[in-house]
Every structure is written in structure tokens, then in C-alpha cells.
């Protein structure tokens, strides 16, 4: 296969590499964790993966539109500390719903601030969202300087035990995201997104509202970070201003492993979900593979870097021939 055919092939099937990787990882995981497909294990695994899945889906939208959002992790932290401090363990569930809605509003506002600076002030996405990430992380730390707080028991129970149709709750979420993405892609706005990320000048010349589209991607990423923050709070049932710190890199990695190019315009949300699941499974494998605790971080990070480098290595190899 020559370079062009390979490129067009991999472009038409952006999820191919990630699907292949998913299958391999599932098999390896099966080797270490035999009961992976049993309901309980599946449920507990997917429960842990879900926050990143949601976050990566939002990140994918921003990256498809030609941007990047380094602040999503900090937005997760804000939502986490809001939920954990405003209701409390004994809190009333009505109030919890209200605070959840408020948290989502805050996350969208945070996204809107990012979008304003990137789309309308025309600042570089990387450095802008890096700056706002500090703003948001500081805010989270301001709300909750020391880890603690909690949410009503019923909410963490709900997140742990709900298995509609005997399936993990996460599957329902994934189905909703995929359905929403499927519809979204087919709307005019979905076309705009790919056009803006693919070639902003051409989109502009064709009278696509480029700035508005860019702005909206950050709001969507903010909202998804908010939902992710709610999920992770229900999972851990407590607050910590550093909750989201590690999630930003993972969300970007998930998107890249999922076949979306960082330059924008190629890829999709489904790949990001696959990527997030892969990252979760890798962590699983490491913890079940009897790797010395001190080595786990290194192995995990090394696998991520290798996965990021893989497409580049393949290209380099193909170019040489």
C-alpha cells in the first residue's frame, strides 16, 4: 500500500487504529482479570471510566473544531468542590439537584470564558486555556482548600447501583452521547464544526460563522466537563480541589488515541470514547499485572506516550520506504 492510499484509507476509517488497540487491550485485560465481562466487574470498571469518557467527548468537539482545552480538568475540579461543599452528606436531594444545575451552569460559563478569549479575542487556544486552568484551579482551591465534604448517600448509591436493563449506567451514557453526536453530526452545525476545524479560511469565505462555532465548542467542552465533574463526584462521594488535575492530559490523550488529529477537522467523538476506555483498561491491566506499585505511574505514562507516538512512527516508517 503506498502512502496516499494508506492516508486516505486511515482517514476514511479514523477509528480503525483505536478499535484495533481496544481489542488487543481487552484481550490482555482478560488475561489478567478473567471476570472482566461479568456484570459486577463490568459495572465497577465502567463506573470508573465514565468521567473520563464524558470529558474526552467534550475535548473531542473542541479539537475537531481546531482548538484545544487545557482547562477541562480544572472545570471538573470546580464542579466537584461545589457539589461536595454545598449540599453535604445529610443534604436534601432536592437541593442537590439544584446545586447540580448550578454546577453545570458554572461549567458552561467557564467554557464560555475560554471560548470568548479564543474565538473573539483570537488568542492561542493552548496558552489561553492553560491560563484559565490556573484561574479555575485557584477557584476550586478557594472553595475547598482541604479535601473533604460530601454528597448525600443516595446519589453515590444511585451511581454505584443503577444498572438499567442489567447494563452498567455508563453504557446508557455512552449510548446517549453517541446518539447525540450522531444527530449533531448530521445537523448544519455539525458540518460547520468539521469545516472550521478542517480549513477555517475556506469556511470563512463560504460565510460559515467561524467565531461562533469556535466559541460554542468551548461551551460544549465546559458543559461536558461539568457532567464529568458530577459523575466523578458521585463516584468518589467527596470533594478535592485536585480532582481534575490528572484528567486534562488523559482527555487529550483519549482523543488522540481515538484517531482525531490535533490539527482539527478529522475524527470524531466515538473515537474519543474508545480512547478513554483504552486508557482505563491500561490502568486496569497495570494494577492487575502485579507490577510493583512504584512502577505503575511510569508504566502507565510510558504506554500513553507510546500510543501517542505510534501514528507518527508508522508515518515515519512509511515515508522512509
Amino acid at each position, binding site marked *: 500500500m503506498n502512502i496516499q492510499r494508506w492516508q*486516505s484509507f486511515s*482517514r476514511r476509517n479514523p477509528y480503525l487504529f483505536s478499535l484495533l488497540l481496544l481489542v488487543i487491550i481487552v484481550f490482555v485485560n482478560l488475561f489478567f482479570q478473567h471476570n472482566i465481562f461479568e456484570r459486577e466487574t463490568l459495572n465497577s470498571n465502567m463506573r470508573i471510566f465514565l468521567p473520563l469518557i464524558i470529558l474526552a467527548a467534550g475535548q473531542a468537539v473542541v479539537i475537531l473544531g481546531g482548538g484545544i482545552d487545557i482547562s477541562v480538568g480544572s472545570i471538573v475540579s470546580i464542579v466537584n468542590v461545589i457539589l461536595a461543599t454545598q449540599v453535604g452528606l445529610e443534604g436534601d436531594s432536592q437541593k442537590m439537584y439544584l446545586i447540580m444545575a448550578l454546577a453545570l451552569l458554572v461549567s458552561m460559563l467557564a467554557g464560555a470564558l475560554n471560548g470568548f478569549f479564543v474565538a473573539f479575542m483570537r488568542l492561542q487556544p493552548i496558552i489561553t486555556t492553560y491560563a484559565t486552568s490556573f484561574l479555575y484551579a485557584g477557584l476550586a482551591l478557594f472553595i475547598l482548600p482541604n479535601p473533604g465534604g460530601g454528597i448525600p448517600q443516595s446519589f453515590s448509591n444511585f451511581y454505584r447501583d443503577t444498572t438499567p436493563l442489567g447494563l452498567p449506567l455508563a453504557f446508557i451514557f455512552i449510548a446517549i452521547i453517541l446518539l447525540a453526536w450522531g*444527530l449533531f453530526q448530521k445537523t448544519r452545525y455539525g*458540518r*460547520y464544526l468539521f469545516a472550521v476545524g478542517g480549513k477555517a479560511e*475556506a469556511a*470563512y*469565505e463560504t460565510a*460559515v460563522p467561524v467565531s461562533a462555532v469556535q466559541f460554542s465548542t468551548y461551551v460544549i467542552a465546559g458543559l461536558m466537563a461539568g457532567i464529568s465533574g458530577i459523575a466523578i463526584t458521585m463516584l468518589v462521594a467527596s470533594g478535592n480541589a485536585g480532582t481534575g488535575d490528572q484528567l486534562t492530559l488523559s482527555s487529550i490523550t483519549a482523543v488522540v488515541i481515538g484517531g482525531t488529529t490535533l490539527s482539527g*477537522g478529522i475524527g470524531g467523538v466515538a473515537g474519543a470514547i474508545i480512547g478513554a476506555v483504552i486508557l482505563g483498561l491500561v490502568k486496569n491491566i497495570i494494577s492487575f499485572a502485579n507490577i510493583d506499585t512504584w512502577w505503575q505511574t511510569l508504566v502507565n505514562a510510558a504506554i500513553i506516550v507510546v500510543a501517542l507516538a505510534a501514528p507518527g512512527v508508522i508515518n515515519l516508517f512509511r515515508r522512509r520506504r
Partner: protein
Amino acid sequence: MSLSLSARNVVKRYAGVVALSDANLDVNAGEVVALIGANGSGKSTLSKIINGVVVLDRGQLLLNGQPVNFSSPQAAKNLGISTVFQDLSLVPHMTVAENVWLAREPLQWGGIVDQKQIREKTDALLGLFAGTYKDSLRPEVTVASLPSDEKQIVEILKAVSFEPQLLILDEATASLDSRQVERLFEMVVRWKQDGKAIIFVSHRMEEIFRIADRYYVLRNGKTVGSGEMKQVKTKDIVALMVGDESAESVVERKKSVRQNSLSQKIQLEVTDLSTDGLRGVNLSLHAGELLGIGGLKGQGQRTLLHTLFGALDHTGEVKFDGALVRFKSPRQAMNKGVALVPGERAKEGLLFIRSILENLLLPSWGDYGFPTRIQKAQHSAAEVSTSLSLKMAGLNEPVSGLSGGNAQKVVIGKWLLRKPRLLLLDDPTKGVDVGTKAEFYRLLAKLCADGVSVLFYSSDDEELLGLCDRVLVMHDGLIRTELAGESLTKSNLVAASLGASQESMQ
């Protein structure tokens, strides 16, 4: 609704470079107006101002006699102005249908794009060009996978699908073959009868005379002439495009360069050079020879020069100075005494925000020791800029403040500092004023006299005819024709550019 649009005294500058100084144009419903000018004369800028992509600095646009101010391309589209862009406004990874209907997708229930309708409407549009393209052009293939002529067709269909009142065709025929051009012209005639206004931007005289009713000629950003096509001849328009002075300077140079260089040794010999866009090029270049390369734009001239400079991978043999060489990077080529003046000055030739000094010395810093002997570097830079009579405020001023001609002198100057033995020139006089052109011709003469070999691509036929003893005409990645001596005439050059073979001309 019939429409008339006028541009009055339009001025536009980019980062200090004047693109338009005084552009004027009128177009009315039911006529085709040709906008003519050499490369860099401001044709594209003027059309981008009319369709709202570029903001004018001064001057006025009048629509049906009323001043208008387009705040965006959207505003211009809403008033019925649509454009076929020279550099295509297509998103490479989207399909043909998605590209054509971008931002105006027919929707069905719930805001979902109606894929079926999009496809049918695209198919219907493609019918306009039926029979002139390959079967692979279908609504659902991605634009990136199409050859350039079919991309151009998609771009045209996209502009047409807006059902505009004013259609701007900016070099729309440049990459079309003759059948496709024919089809386009049939459509233009029909649109004209339907009362649409059309601006036809081109530098192909024959096409302009066939299709246009009136003409405007731009030279260095200024409208220098206009009138009815019927009352004018090709040479009148060419005279307007070129101005009077340059013809003179070409002639003057003609006497000074033409020495019999062919007796000298062969400096560069290329056998079967192939790469993406080049299909087996053979040529030989003597020491001290000024060898021209001609042909329509984008026939592989740029690729050839870049390949010889080691910037592109290739197959085939290159012999330089009698030894087989294989440059893997521009750096290797540079170290052997090869230099390239690239075609896109701002993108490929200059460090725009850096100083003139740094631009001049960019390839040579390594020769000034450690720590860099900055005084010596300044001295060399001053010397070369004096010899080129570079007009500048100082060596430490950014290169972005220079005019086109002076900026090009910097690009050439950086190579002169290295005393190259082979100079590759990619359309070096594009957007350069007449005075500088004349200086530049004298410089080339001097370099050749000193034994430097020059491979000189120019989009300006007059330049090739005036300067070169031998011209190789490229077409579709091949050298189709070699013109020298008696056969080196304007008509042969034009015929060869259009792809006629050597035999058919004799």
C-alpha cells in the same frame, strides 16, 4: 433583480506592502467584465474586496449606486455576490456534496441535514459539467482525493449553487482542460443572458477576448485602462499590463547578456528526474548560462526547482559539477553552491518579523565564527545591500517594512553573500516594480558573465524571450519543448505552454 456594482479608488495595504493603490471597476447585470493584470497586480485582492473577504483601507464600493460596506463574506453573499476563489474555498476532508452546500444545507425535520437532497442537488449541478470529468467525481467522495481540475469544478459549482447575481471567476480556468473551459463558457453566456453580472479574472488573453464584453487592466494596484473588448487588440492590453518602461529594459539587457555561453562546460545535468508532479525531466545547463523555464503556472516548474535544491524527495540522476549528487536537504545543496529564490516571497523566502540583517545572513551565520563576529556580518550585509542598491532605513529594520522589489533584493542578497554557482529562480520578478526589474536583469547578466549558471522560471513570457537563449517549456510535469534561436518566438512559447508538441509546431 438586476445589479450593478462599482469599486471607486480602492486602496489596500498588507503590512506595509501596497496591494491596491487606486483600483476602479464597474460591472452591470448582463455583462462579462474582464479584470486583467500581471501576477501581483492586485486582481485577487480587488475581487476579495468585492466579495467581503478583505476590508478595503480607502475608497468605496457602490451597489446599485448606493455605498455598501461588507462586514463579512456573509453580507456579500446575502446581496447575491459569489466567488470562485483562485486558491479554492474547499475543506479538503469534507465530501464534494458537503462542500458545495456548506452553510446552506437543505434541512429536514429537526434540523437534520437532508443527505438525499444534498446528493441529488449536487448530482444535478455536476450535470452542468457532464462528460468532462472522470467517474470518480461523485457527491460523496472527499475533495482531497480529487485531481486539481475536478477540485476546480467543485469550486465553480459551489459558487454557482448560491444562484448569485454577481459571479466572480478568479482564475477559474487555470487548472481546467479545454473541454471543461468550453463548458464553463457556454454557462457564462447563458448566465449573461439571464441578467447576471460576471467578473472574469484571468491572464489568458484568448479566453478574455472570447468571453468578455469589457475590460479593466490593473498594474501595480492601479486601474490603468478600461474599455470595450471589441475596440481593443491583444497588444494594446499587454502594453497596458506591462507599461512602457519594462519593454525597453528587456531590450537593453538583451544585448548585454547574450554571450555565447553554450561553448562552456556543463554545470548541471539532470536525467529522468521524477517526483510527485514531475514525470521524468531531462535537462542540461552550461556554466554561465541563463536557461529559461516557461509554461503555464503550476506545470511542475516550482517542483523542479525545489527538487534540484534538495527540498523534495526524488528519483533520477542529478550531476552537478560533473559529479553525481543526491541532495537530501536544502542545506546540502547550499553547501555545494546551489541557491534558490523561491516563488512565494513572504512564505518561503523571508523571515517577515526579523531584521534585514538577519534575513541576509540567514544561510551564512555558521561562517562568522563563535562568538558571531557581528561587525563583520554587518559589513558583509551592508556591502551586498549597497551592491543591490537596497532602499532601506537600516540593516536592523524589520524586512516587513520593505516594498516588494526591495524585499526580493533581500532574498537574492542572502544568496549572493554565499557566491553560488547555480542559481534557481522561481518567478523572481513577480510583484516587483519595473525599475527593480531592470536592475535585476542587469544583475543576472553580471552573474552569468561571472560564470554562474541560472535556471530561471518566469510566468512572464516577455521576460523569457528577452533574457534567455534557451527556454524549456514545461507542461504537466514534463519538459515538452525546447525553444532556442530561431524557434524562440512568442507564438511558439504560447503554443508550447498550452501543451502543443514540438513536431506540431514545425
